[in-house]
Structure formats: C-alpha cells, structure tokens
C-alpha cells in the first residue's frame, strides 16, 4: 500500500518530535508540523477523490448544464441561458412540482414525527410486549420503500382492503378512491412515507426519553405536575435533540423522495403528487436531459434553502434549553 511507504520515513522521527512538541508550551508551528506528520493527507485523498469524481464535479456540472439545450435527440450542446427555467415556469410545472415537493416534505415531517412520538410514549416501558411491538414497527424501516408503496397501493385501491374494512365497520359499501384525489392523495402518500419511517423516529424518541434524568421527573412530580404538563412542559422540551434529528431526516428524506410515490401514484392523479425526483426521472427517460438537469438544480437549491435554516433553527432551540 502506498500509504505505508509514504509515511514510513516521517514516522521514525515523529515520536521524539511529538513528545517535545507537547513539552514546549505554545510552540504552535512545531505542533502543526507534528500533526502533518502524524496525520498524513494520504489518508484523506482517496475519500476526496471519490467525492470529487462522483459528487462535487457532477454537482458543478449541474450548474452548467441546466443552462444548455442538452437533449437525447441531437449531438451538439449549446447554452440557451434561462430558457429551460422559463419553459418550466411558463407551463406551470416548476411551481407545481416545487409546491408538491414542499407540501409533501412538510406533511412527511409531521406524520413521521407524530406517529413516532406517539409510539415512543406508548411503548416506553420495558415490558416484553412493548419490546416486541418496537421490533415489529421497525420492520417497515428495513423494507424496500418501493415494496412498501406497492403494498399500500393494494390496501388503498378503491376496491381494496381498507375500503373493505371500512365497509364492514359501517355496514355500507365504501369506495373511496384514496389514491385518486388531486387534493388529498398527497396527504395519503405522505402518511405512507411517515408509516414506513415511523419506527426509526420512534427509536430515536425512545433513546431521547431514556436520557432524561429521573431526578427531573421526580422533582416535577413532587411539585404536583399533572401528566399533561409533565409531558409537554418537561419531557417534550428535553427531547429537543431527538426532535432535531427526526425533523431533519424526515425533511431531507422526503424532499429526495421517489420510491413510495412512484409505486403508489407515479406522480398522479393529474401531477398532484409529482415530486421533483419523479419529474427528473420521467424527463430523463424521455431524453429531455436539459429539463431533467434543470429540475435537479431546482431540487438542489430547494434543499439548500429549506434544510439549512430549519436545522439551524432546531439547533438553536436545543441550545436555549
């Protein structure tokens, strides 16, 4: 391995110098040199190269090709300025898909966290039954999202299982088209996404609940707090780090969502659940690379604009507490 041979000669001198560096108080340069020798960049380069080739360069290219007329139907590629953005904007796709993705992400963040938090509180005590239930709720997390989408498609078909059960409960025929509404289907699909990942959120909340100091709870109990106050004013605020993690992962996961929506509605009905990634995949398949890469840039910008402030806000909230 090149790493060993590179580092060989330097490391012979390293120990004595390293020790001396610690003794001479404040000698910044010596310490820096020791750091360079002890932690050679050769360890960093392989990761950097992979990131450059497969992540950074494509991302930079994305900023370039979104302003070209690149397509699968002709050989040459020429700059066309903002034409792609204008076309996507004027036919309404840009605004619609942005809105759909944003609404979907917000709904998933709510569903995943509400489901996860309720389950965590519900299954908090360490009984055998609760442990079993926790393991079961983790099964959807390890399943393929595509598979989860197909299962729910079958459950929610207008002549599917859910309507059957509702029919039995109400005693009349129910034929709600759960996946056929241009207004409500996005809520249903976001709930499926929340269902798939609620087991993970539950675990994170459970871990957060376990880190709460028992003395805090006891003190509050002595002060006569009722269970409602105990949860919302004492335990929930102490779950801030878990909340940050869960909201951030839910937002990021759903803005990059594809599998569940593709498997249940494929963007329909009428484009009402067309996430940016669905559009990117569809137009790529049609050879419309410019449109595809333009939307990819839009997704990149959207995630940067939404995710960073949300994470910063949640982090600050943690610090205040």
């Amino acid at each position, binding site marked *: 391995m090149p790493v060993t041979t590179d580092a060989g000669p330097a490391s012979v001198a390293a120990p004595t110098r390293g020790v001396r560096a610690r003794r001479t108080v404040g000698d910044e340069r010596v310490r820096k040199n020791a750091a360079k020798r002890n932690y050679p960049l050769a360890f960093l380069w392989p990761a950097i190269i992979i990131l450059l080739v497969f992540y950074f*360069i494509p991302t930079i290219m994305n900023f370039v090709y979104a302003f070209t007329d690149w397509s699968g139907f002709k050989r040459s590629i020429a700059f066309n300025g903002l034409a792609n953005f204008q076309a996507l904007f004027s036919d309404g796709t840009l605004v619609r898909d942005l809105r759909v993705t944003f609404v979907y992400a917000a709904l998933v963040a709510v569903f995943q966290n509400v489901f996860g938090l309720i389950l965590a509180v519900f299954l908090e005590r360490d009984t055998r039954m609760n442990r079993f239930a926790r393991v079961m709720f983790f099964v959807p997390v390890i399943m393929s999202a595509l598979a989860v989408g197909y299962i729910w498609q079958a459950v929610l078909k207008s002549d599917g299982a859910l309507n059957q059960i509702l029919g039995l409960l109400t005693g009349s025929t129910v034929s709600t088209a759960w996946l056929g509404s241009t207004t409500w289907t996005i809520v249903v699909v976001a709930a499926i996404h929340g269902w798939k990942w609620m087991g993970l959120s539950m675990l994170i909340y459970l871990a957060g609940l376990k880190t709460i100091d028992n003395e805090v709870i006891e003190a509050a109990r002595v002060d006569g707090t009722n269970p409602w106050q105990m949860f919302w004013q004492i335990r929930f605020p102490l779950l801030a780090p878990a909340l940050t993690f869960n909201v951030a992962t839910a937002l990021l996961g759903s803005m990059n969502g594809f599998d569940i929506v593709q498997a249940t509605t494929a963007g329909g009905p009428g484009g009402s659940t067309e996430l940016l990634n669905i559009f990117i995949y569809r137009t790529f398949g049609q050879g419309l690379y410019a449109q595809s890469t333009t939307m990819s840039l839009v997704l990149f910008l959207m995630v940067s604009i939404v995710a960073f402030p949300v994470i910063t806000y949640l982090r600050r909230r943690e610090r205040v507490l």
Partner: protein
Amino acid sequence: MTATAFNDRRTTERAPGVHRRGSGIVHNLFVVLVLLALLGVPFWLMIVTAGKSQAEAVQPNLRLPSHWQLLENLHTVITDGRMVQAFFGSVLVTVPSVVIALLLGAMASWVLARRTSRAMSVVYALCISGIILPPAVVTIMMLLRQLGLAGTPHGMIGVYTGIYLSTVIFFITGFIRTIPPSLEEAARIDGAGPARVFFTIILPLLGPTLATATILVTLYIWNDVFYSLFILSGKLDTLPLNLYSVASAGMYLNNWHLIFAYIILMSLPLLIIFAVAQRRIISGITGGAVK
C-alpha cells in the same frame, strides 16, 4: 459500548413501576390492537395475496386464498423473474460500496478529526455537505457515460460510495474526536507509523460506530431504486430494480400475487439479518443519533 450503556439504563431507570397489573393488561391489549391495525392489515394482505392464484389476486383483498399456492408463486418469481441474478447484482453493488465507503471514510475522518487548521475545517464541511445536499443524478450519469462507467457495477459502486461517504465521515469524525490522542501517542513513541497507528489503534476502537454506519448505509443502498434506475439503466439487475420492472409490467396484467411473492422474497435477507442482530441494530442506531 453504546449497546451496553443503552441496556443498563433501560433496566435501572424504569424500575419504579407506576403502573399496576390491571392497567398492564389493558395496555397490552391496546398494543395488540395497534399492531393489528397498523402492521397486521398491510402485511396480512401481502401474505394472503401472495398465496393466491392470478384470478383470485386480481382484486387484492383480505380473504384467505381458496387454496394456498404460495410456494408455486415463489417458485414462479424465482424462475421467471430472474431473481437469483438480481440478488447477486444487489450483493455485487452493495458490499463493495459499503466496505469502500467505511474504509475510506474512516481514514479520512481520522485526519479530519485530528488536524484542526482552518483549511481542514472547510474540507470537513465540504465532505459532510452530502448529508444534506442531494446528488446531481443527471450529470452523474453524463459523467459516467464519458468515463465509460455507465451501466457498470463499478460506476454504481462509485456513485453509492460518493453519496454515503458524507454520512460515514460525519458519524466517524464525531466519534474519533472523543478518543484521546494520548492513546496514539504511546504507540508513536514505540515507533509506529501513521498506518500502524490507524489500523491497530484507531480502527479497532471504531467498532460500534462502524457497525451503526454499516447498518444505515446498507439499508439505503440495498433498498435504493432511484439512483440505480439512472446509473444501471437495465444493464445490471438489482432486487429493487427487478421488482420495479416486474411490477411495472404487471400493473396492467394485475399480477398482484407475483408482486407480493417477490416482495416477500426480496425482504427476507434483511429481515433475517435484523431478526438475528435486532438488539445490536436497534441500540446501534439509537446510540448514534442522540448525543
């Protein structure tokens, strides 16, 4: 390390039982009801439909099949659905991606955690930016075509490694910062070079963190369909890709029994691993997330 801490706390902290036995039974009944409603219905539907004939499965419902033909359906899926190739395709891209991401990520993390110059912290910020920022999948595909890697396992492995290196570096750098440098110092005095220090001292200490990162990254890569739809473009099959083509073809043929038989089979590898290592996986994930 995290595993034991998690389990210790679990036994001591919840010891003062506030609930009486009666409420325990009610609680357990309620848990069963919730499990049946939330998990029982979809999974029951999947299993009974996978056991039906095509005629019966056209309208998936909760009724039992008139006669079970689950094994025949599984057999059909394996032979007609090219499932064996797809399984090996999945293994072929997942295992190298995870191993490379973990090894290169751990090596980079060590340097990033220990060197504290301003330039290094910029490099670190760039390295972990991939946790948040989505990869530019269309231009990745274009670059791979130019490199002659489109549709190859090598290209796919590179893309997965590039996407998940950020996560690995983030997890491991945070952990290495908690390891006192004095542990390395001792080995250095004995004349060990950086490679020896890393592989004999740091890497063994990373065990629990590496385990957590392995679980997360494996979950994402094994189940991924979006990136493989672009990169592999039908030249190499993975399990989710294969499911997608089976289901897309079967949608209008209404082959629900085959789709569900396929889903049961493809979920088995991860389910079995999870069943065996369930306690470690759960404590590993929770240990890493909430500091």
